Each structure stands twice: as structure tokens, then as C-alpha cells.
């Protein structure tokens, strides 16, 4: 059902605002809404910045040591511990930020040093200090490089001109070398050398022997790398405190929510407006009373033009299916909650689409264990529960259809879909028709709630009569009754469909309404997808059984057979789950919700302690 909401208005003293916000956040029952002249608290910008800093530190830790695996339990924390920021944890965050800075410094230094080392490396064989590598009275000195395969040409050129070539190491663009030429022929040699591929290259900016500089650089690089190792080690140690950083993030997020709560201010007072569930007003009242006795607190029913957020409250069995509805759209607070009707249909149809007792058992095991061990939260938890619940119907329909891991271990209670596709198709249509009828009935409920009994009977009940009649027409003993019902239903639709129009349009409107029968019938035909999915998962399973059977015969064959069996069925189960999830949802969203559902509800997000990374005790 949809929980009725009350509009909350609170006036209190400005100096008690912090304490009141804290108390309201702790109780977790008030969703504050923003009004035109409301503004966030003074510390809003700062808390946003602090939250970002905490998240950045946590992100850095995640990058260096990874997130927690799905199966490790989250830390458990008292609610109280998240309400205030722990200064010890702030220190930890600063340490992480400092370490991050040092690591990036270290990386920058390392890349600068290694770049220089790479530039000096080809010159280490030079046996004179770099600054002395200049022209003498009679000899001109050039430095440069040339590709290794062009070197002989250059050597020949140099010899022809009484010059010497001193070969050094291999540089980025070829062999590095020094040319010594008599001053008279230097220009000529240089021209000729450039023609065969010689490129001038400045020696590195080093004082003294390059070898000495290279050794110095190697030592420095070594030191930098050692430092990095030490930093990484320190990082790993800090990362063990990942849990604490996560707690800090949650504390900061909790603080930021308080700071961003919109309130209207006067010089001495403030005003909060918001929503709460009608049966929780006392909790809100107590939260306020525990802080101060100087307040005015009122709870009102929503006005005509106000749309409160939607809270649905259902039994434990139905609640997980709310996630399926919410993914489409939350119900409008004024309409009937579709979940109690939708849940059993989803459950039944999902199981029918899977339709295998063995798979039902596997699903129960897998999703049951997953819930126990990984303890998923939020909507994901609900989804896993939906799948767990649906394992029951999967097994049920498996027994009905005699399908056990794709094999017929026991004879079917109903029939085997592969042998009797037409009977299965009819079963699917009947289920579809009943599903759609329940949607039409919900539409009637909505009409009656709005006080429109004409719409309930003429636009909804008439369709049930017409469609039932069409169905009966195919059943031999009832075909006479069916014909009458269908004619009666159609007559009601034609006569009343245009009642809102005037003149001749009363009749054309009615005929146009009857044209809707094509839509209704195609909706029912759409349930034939159940048959298609039952057959596809059944046949694929059968094929894997067949393949596994074919390779048996030797020891190796039996091993391969087991592998094919296991991998094949896991694959088929996964694909089957995907199809059943998608198509069971689609039948709800389009065929079922299409009959009555408005949606467009907003979620109810009360001020509360933000436990995004931890579990509350």
C-alpha cells in the first residue's frame, strides 16, 4: 500500500538549528524540501569541499590497493559514530593526501632524472670533460649523430679530408660521434657529412666527464626509486586503514547533508518544510522535543496541488518486487499501489519462462548463498531476493513441464511444452488474459476511488466481458455463451465509448473505442513470448545434454562430458535468467501497467545517516 504522508512545518530558534538538524537526521524520518526563499546552511561550501577531499583520499587508496571484494564484510559502525567527524580520521586523511603528494613528486623527479640519464648515456665513452670539447687553434670539433647503416659513408668522407671520427654510444637518433677536422676543410666536411645523413647534436649540458654525471644520475635514480618503494610500503600500511577512510567519507557525507538542508531564516528563527510518513509524526516530534521546547511544529495533510513523495509499504514477500516497479516509475501517491498485484504475477511468469526444476534448485542455492555471504544492499538486494523467490516458481513449472536440467527425469504433471506447443501456447494466453484482467480491475479501482463509476464499468468492466466472451468462443461447450458475452461487451463499448462527445461523435467515438480490441488482443498475444522462452531454454539445455552424452566413452570423454554439462547449463541458466528478467519485466511494464498505471512518483529521501560504505549496527 502507499503510505499516507504529512506535510511538516517546523519553526525554531536559529541558535538551536545545528542541534535540531542533528537530531532530525538521527531519527531519519523527515525529508526536507526546498522552497523559494530557503537557503542551505552557512557551512555548505566548506562541507562540500571537505567531502570532496575525503572522497579524493579514499579514491587514491582505492586506486593503490583496490576496493573491498564483494564477499568481505563491510565494517559495522554505530549510527552515532557517523554523525560527527572524527578528528583522528582527519589526520589519517591528511597523511594519505601528504603521501599522495610525495608519490607524485617522486614520479615527477624520476621521470626528469631518467630523461637526463637517457640523454647522457651515449656520451659516457667521451674521455674529455664536455666543456673542453671545443675548437682548438688548428682543429675544428663537431658533435652529432648518424644512423648506424650510414656510418661507413661518413667514415670514408672523413678519411678523404684528413679528419678523424670518434665513435661514442648509441643515441636516440643513431650513433653519437665527434668529428675532428682541420680548420681549412671543416666547412667542406660538414656539408658533405650532412649530405650523407649526419645530424648535428649538442653534447649534454654537463660539467666534467659525462661518465661522472651518468654515475651521479644513476645514484640519484636509485635513491628516488628506493624512496618510492618506501612510500609505496607506507601507502600499503595506510591502505589497511581503508575502512577508517570509508567511515570518514560517510561522516563527511552525513555532515554535508545537514549543511545542505534548505531552511528559511529570519534574524533569530528558522523554518523547515518537509514530508514525513503519517504514522511517524511522533518520531519527528520526539526528535525535536529532545533538543528544545521552543518550537512550533505542525503536521498537515497534503493540499490538492501538492504531490508528496511516494513510500510503498508491503509485506516482506512483496517488498523486493517494488524494485521492479520503481525501475519503471514509482507510483503516484494518489493511485493504488500496483505492487501487491504485480508481485505474484511477476513471480509466476518469471518461473514459467525459466520452467526447469533443476535450474530452480540451482537458483535457490546460488542466490540464497549470495544473500548470506555478500549481503548486498539497496535495490540490488531486492533484485537478488526477487530471483531467490522466483526459484520456487521456476522449480514448480519445471515439475509441471517435466523438465529437470533439460531432461525428462520424471513425467510431467501437465505436459512437455516441446511435445505440445499449442497447448502451452493456450496456457500462456490464458495466463496473459488473467494478468491483463487484473490490470483492468486495478484501473476500475482507480476510477472508483476518483468517484467515476461510469469509467469503471463502461471503459473497464466492458472489456473484461468482451475478452472473456472471445475466449469462451473457442471452447466448444461455452461458445454460445461466449458469443453473447462478446456481443454484449462490444455493445456496451460502442454505446458508451463516445459518451463524453456531442452529436454524431457519440457514435464514432464508440466505434473508435471498440477498435481498441486490436490493442487488447495483441497484448494477450504478447504472452506467447513465455512459450518461446520456455522452449528456448529447454531446447538449449537438451542440446547440452546431448553433446555431453556424445563425448562419453573414455576417461577423457567423461571429463569432457562433465565439463560440457556444467558449463553448458551454467551458460543456459545465465541467458535464461537474463531473458526471463527482461521479458517478465516487459510484460509488467507494457501489457500490465499499460492498463492502469500512472507512475511518476518521487522517491522519499529523508535526512538520515549516510552509511554508503559501512553497515549500521
Amino acid at each position, binding site marked *: 500500500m502507499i503510505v499516507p504522508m504529512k506535510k511538516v512545518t517546523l519553526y525554531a530558534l536559529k541558535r538551536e538549528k545545528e542541534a535540531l538538524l542533528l537530531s532530525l537526521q538521527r531519527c531519519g524520518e523527515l525529508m526536507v524540501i526546498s522552497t523559494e526563499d530557503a537557503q542551505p546552511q552557512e557551512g555548505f561550501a566548506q562541507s562540500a569541499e571537505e567531502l570532496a577531499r575525503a572522497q579524493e583520499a579514499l579514491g587514491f587508496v582505492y586506486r593503490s590497493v583496490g576496493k573491498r571484494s564483494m564477499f568481505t564484510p563491510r565494517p559495522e559502525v554505530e549510527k552515532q559514530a557517523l554523525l560527527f567527524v572524527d578528528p583522528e580520521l582527519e589526520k589519517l586523511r591528511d597523511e594519505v593526501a601528504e603521501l599522495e603528494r610525495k608519490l607524485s613528486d617522486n614520479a615527477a623527479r624520476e621521470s626528469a632524472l631518467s630523461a637526463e640519464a637517457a640523454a647522457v648515456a651515449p656520451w659516457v665513452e667521451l674521455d674529455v670533460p664536455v666543456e673542453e670539447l671545443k675548437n682548438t687553434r688548428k682543429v675544428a670539433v663537431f658533435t652529432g649523430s648518424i644512423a648506424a647503416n650510414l656510418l661507413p659513408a661518413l667514415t670514408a668522407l672523413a678519411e678523404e679530408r684528413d679528419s678523424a671520427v670518434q665513435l661514442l654510444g648509441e643515441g636516440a637518433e643513431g650513433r653519437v660521434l665527434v668529428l675532428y677536422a682541420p680548420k681549412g676543410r671543416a666547412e667542406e666536411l660538414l656539408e658533405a657529412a650532412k649530405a650523407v645523413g649526419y645530424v648535428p647534436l649538442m653534447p649534454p649540458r654537463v660539467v666534467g666527464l659525462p661518465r661522472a654525471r651518468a654515475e651521479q644520475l644513476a645514484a640519484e635514480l636509485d635513491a628516488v626509486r628506493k624512496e618510492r618503494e618506501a612510500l609505496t610500503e607506507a601507502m600499503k600500511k595506510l591502505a589497511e586503514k581503508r575502512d577508517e577512510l570509508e567511515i570518514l567519507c560517510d561522516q563527511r557525507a552525513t555532515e554535508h547533508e545537514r549543511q545542505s538542508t534548505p531552511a528559511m531564516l529570519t534574524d533569530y528563527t528558522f523554518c523547515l518544510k518537509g514530508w514525513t510518513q503519517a504514522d511517524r509524526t511522533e518520531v519527528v516530534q520526539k526528535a525535536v522535543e529532545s533538543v528544545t521546547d521552543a518550537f512550533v511544529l505542525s503536521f498537515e495533510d497534503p493540499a490538492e496541488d501538492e504531490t508528496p513523495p511516494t513510500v510503498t509499504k508491503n509485506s516482506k514477500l512483496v517488498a523486493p518486487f517494488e524494485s521492479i516497479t520503481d525501475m519503471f516509475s514509482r507510483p503516484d501517491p494518489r493511485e493504488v499501489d500496483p505492487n501487491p498485484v504485480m508481485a505474484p504475477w511477476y513471480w509466476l511468469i518469471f518461473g514459467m519462462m525459466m520452467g526447469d526444476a533443476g535450474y530452480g534448485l540451482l537458483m535457490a542455492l546460488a542466490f540464497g548463498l549470495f544473500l548470506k555471504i555478500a549481503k548486498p544492499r539497496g535495490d540490488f538486494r531486492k533484485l537478488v531476493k526477487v530471483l531467490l523467490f522466483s526459484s520456487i516458481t521456476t522449480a514448480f513449472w519445471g515439475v509441471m513441464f517435466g523438465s529437470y536440467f533439460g531432461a525428462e527425469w520424471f513425467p510431467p504433471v501437465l505436459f512437455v511444452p516441446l511435445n505440445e506447443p499449442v497447448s502451452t501456447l493456450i496456457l500462456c494466453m490464458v495466463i496473459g488474459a488473467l494478468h491483463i484482467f487484473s490490470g483492468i480491475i486495478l484501473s476500475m479501482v482507480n476510477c472508483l476511488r476518483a468517484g467515476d463509476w461510469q469509467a469503471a464499468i463502461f471503459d473497464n468492466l466492458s472489456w473484461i466481458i468482451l475478452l472473456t466472451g472471445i475466449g469462451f468462443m473457442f471452447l466448444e461447450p461455452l461458445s454460445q455463451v461466449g458469443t453473447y458475452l462478446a456481443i454484449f461487451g462490444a455493445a456496451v463499448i460502442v454505446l458508451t465509448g463516445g459518451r463524453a462527445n456531442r452529436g454524431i461523435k457519440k457514435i464514432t467515438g464508440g466505434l473508435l473505442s471498440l477498435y481498441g480490441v486490436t490493442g487488447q488482443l495483441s497484448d494477450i498475444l504478447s504472452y506467447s513470448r513465455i512459450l518461446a522462452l520456455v522452449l528456448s531454454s529447454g531446447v538449449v539445455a537438451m542440446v547440452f545434454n*546431448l553433446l555431453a552424452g556424445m563425448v562419453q566413452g573414455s576417461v577423457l570423454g567423461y571429463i569432457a562430458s562433465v565439463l560440457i554439462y556444467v558449463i553448458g547449463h551454467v551458460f543456459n541458466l545465465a541467458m535464461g535468467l537474463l531473458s526471463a528478467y*527482461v521479458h517478465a519485466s*516487459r510484460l509488467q511494464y507494457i501489457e500490465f501497467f499499460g492498463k492502469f498505471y500512472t507512475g511518476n512518483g518521487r522517491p522519499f529521501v529523508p535526512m538520515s545517516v549516510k552509511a554508503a560504505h559501512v553497515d549500521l549496527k
Partner: protein
Amino acid sequence: MSTGTLIAIIGAALAAILAGVGSAYGVRLTGQAAAGVTAEKPDLFGKLLVIEALPGTQGIYGFLVAVIVMVRIGILGGGVANLTMEQGWSFFGACMPIAIVGLISATFQAQTAVSAILMTAKEPGSSAKGITMAALVETYAILALLVSILLVFGIQV
């Protein structure tokens, strides 16, 4: 083996081939889009995987019809039946709905699914709506599958 049986086998092969090619092409498109989004938003991987796999079902449907034909004409389990030309062409025709619709609907569904992936990237909460939009395209592949199945079972051997 008679020519009729040969024609039936070609039909079954085409069902698996064409629908499979369509799905492979479709999943390629969605896979590329999903990979691009995952690079920026790794958290969405789970949601995107569901949308990515949507155009993959047509290939399974084609495979399914091919297997049913194999069972009917006795290639799987039992001796191969000697079909007449009429029977062979009947099986061939029965395979065509899922072969052709499977091929085309998988590629079209992939385009819708790519849009759904981009929508999910912008608005992660709307993935269910995107899935529904893409699933609407699949309806016609399912109808073709049903026609193929009912035809294959309706042929007298």
C-alpha cells in the same frame, strides 16, 4: 539421403546462420558502446551488460529452430528420414521467419540498445526503461520464432 532432406538441412542451417550473424553484428554494436561507457563509468558495467546482451537472443532463437528441425528429421537421435521434396521445402520455409526476422531484428534491436546504453550513461536510473525500449523490438523476433516452431511441428514426416 534424399534431396528433400538436403533442402531441410539447408533451411535449418540458414536459421542458425542468419539469426546468428544478426546477433553477432548486434552484440558487436552494443559491446562497443558499452565498452566506451564502461571506460568512463566502470560502476555501470553490470547494468550495461544486461543491455549489451539483448540483441544476442535472436541467435539463440535461430539455433533453437535449427535444433528442432534436426530432431524432427532425425539427424539428432535416430536415423535420418528420407524426406520428399514437398517436405524438404516445407521445413525450409518454416525456417525462414526466424532466419530473416532474426537477422534484421537483431541489428535493429542493437541500434535501440545502443541508444539505451547512452541513455544509461547519462542517467543510470533509467536503465530499465532503456531495456524495455530495446525489448519491444525483440517482440517481432519472438513472433517469428513462434511461427517457425509451430510450422516445424506442423509438418508431417
